[in-house]
C-alpha cells in the first residue's frame, strides 16, 4: 500500500513550478503517492490551523497560529528582496494616500492572515480592511468598491494595465526599514512526521524545486518547458515571456 503525502499550495505559477516535481512524479521515492491540494492562501492558512496537510504553503503572518503543529522548511519560501505586495489605487484616489492618516480609507486586502496585510498594518495601522479574494482585488479597486487594493502574485506586475497606480511597495518599505528581505510565504511540515522524515522531506522538496531547471545536469525527466506549461493555468494574465 502506498504512503499518501498531502501537499498543498496556492494556485499561482511560482508555487506550481516549485511543486511540479513532487506532484507530477519523479522526485518522491517508490511507494509514495501525492494528494495534491490547490487552494487560495487564506484557505491554506485556515487548513493549517487544523493540521490538515503534511506539507503546505502558508502565509508567514499565519505561522504564529500554527507554530505548535508545524516546523518551517528551509526550502520553498517566497521571499521578496526590495519588492513585495503593492498597494494600488485609481489615479484620482492617490491624493488620499499622501496623508499619514489613513483612518476610514477602505483597502481591499487578500485575507486577515496574509503577510501582505500584516506589512500594511505595520506601515499604516489605521485603515479599514476589506477581505477580498486576491485575484479580484484589482477589479474591486477599478470599480470603486474600495479606495485602494493590496495586490499580490501576478497582479503586482499587471495592475498598470488595468489603469491603476502604485501607492507603495511594501517590500521596498520593509527593506528601507530593516535592510532585510521579506519572507512572504513559507512551506511548513507537520511535526507529527518527526524530525527525520521532516528533514527528508526538506531534501525531496529541494530536489523537486531544482528539477525543472536541472534537466541537463541531472538525469531528470522533467524538462523546464513542461514545468512552465504546467504553471500557465494560474498565470493570471502574465505571458510565458515574463
Amino acid at each position, binding site marked *: 500500500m502506498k504512503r499518501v503525502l498531502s501537499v498543498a499550495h496556492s494556485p499561482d505559477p511560482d508555487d506550481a513550478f516549485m511543486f511540479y516535481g513532487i506532484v507530477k512524479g519523479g522526485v518522491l521515492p517508490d511507494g509514495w503517492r501525492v494528494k495534491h491540494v490547490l487552494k487560495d492562501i487564506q484557505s491554506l492558512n485556515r487548513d493549517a490551523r487544523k493540521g490538515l496537510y503534511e506539507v503546505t504553503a502558508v502565509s508567514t*503572518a499565519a505561522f504564529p497560529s500554527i507554530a505548535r503543529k508545524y516546523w518551517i522548511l*528551509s*526550502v520553498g*519560501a*517566497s521571499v521578496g528582496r526590495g519588492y513585495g505586495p503593492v498597494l494600488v489605487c485609481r489615479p484620482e484616489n492617490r491624493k488620499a494616500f499622501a496623508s499619514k492618516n489613513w483612518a476610514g480609507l477602505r483597502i481591499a486586502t487578500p485575507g486577515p492572515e496574509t503577510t501582505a496585510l500584516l506589512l500594511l498594518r505595520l506601515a499604516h495601522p489605521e485603515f479599514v480592511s476589506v477581505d477580498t479574494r486576491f485575484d479580484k482585488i484589482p477589479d474591486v479597486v477599478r470599480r470603486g468598491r474600495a479606495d485602494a487594493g493590496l495586490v499580490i502574485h501576478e497582479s503586482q506586475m499587471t495592475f498598470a494595465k488595468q489603469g491603476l497606480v502604485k501607492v507603495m511597495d511594501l517590500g521596498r518599505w520593509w527593506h528601507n526599514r530593516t535592510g532585510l528581505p521579506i*519572507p512572504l510565504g513559507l512551506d511548513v511540515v507537520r511535526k507529527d512526521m518527526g524530525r527525520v522524515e521532516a*528533514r527528508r522531506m526538506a531534501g525531496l522538496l529541494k530536489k523537486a524545486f531544482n528539477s525543472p531547471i536541472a534537466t541537463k545536469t541531472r538525469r531528470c525527466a522533467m524538462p523546464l518547458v513542461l514545468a512552465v506549461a504546467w504553471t500557465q493555468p494560474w498565470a493570471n494574465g502574465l505571458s510565458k515571456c515574463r
Partner: protein
Amino acid sequence: MNRDTLDLGDEGERALRTLFRLAWARRLISINPDFEIVRPAVSG
C-alpha cells in the same frame, strides 16, 4: 523562484524573527513564536 527559495538561510531567519518581533510589539499576531527551521539531511 530565487536562491532564498532553495535555502531560507541566516538572513531569511533573521527577517522572520524581525517580522514576528515587530508584529508582536504591535499585537498584530497572537504570539511571537519560537520556531525551528528544518533543513535537508546532508545526504538529502
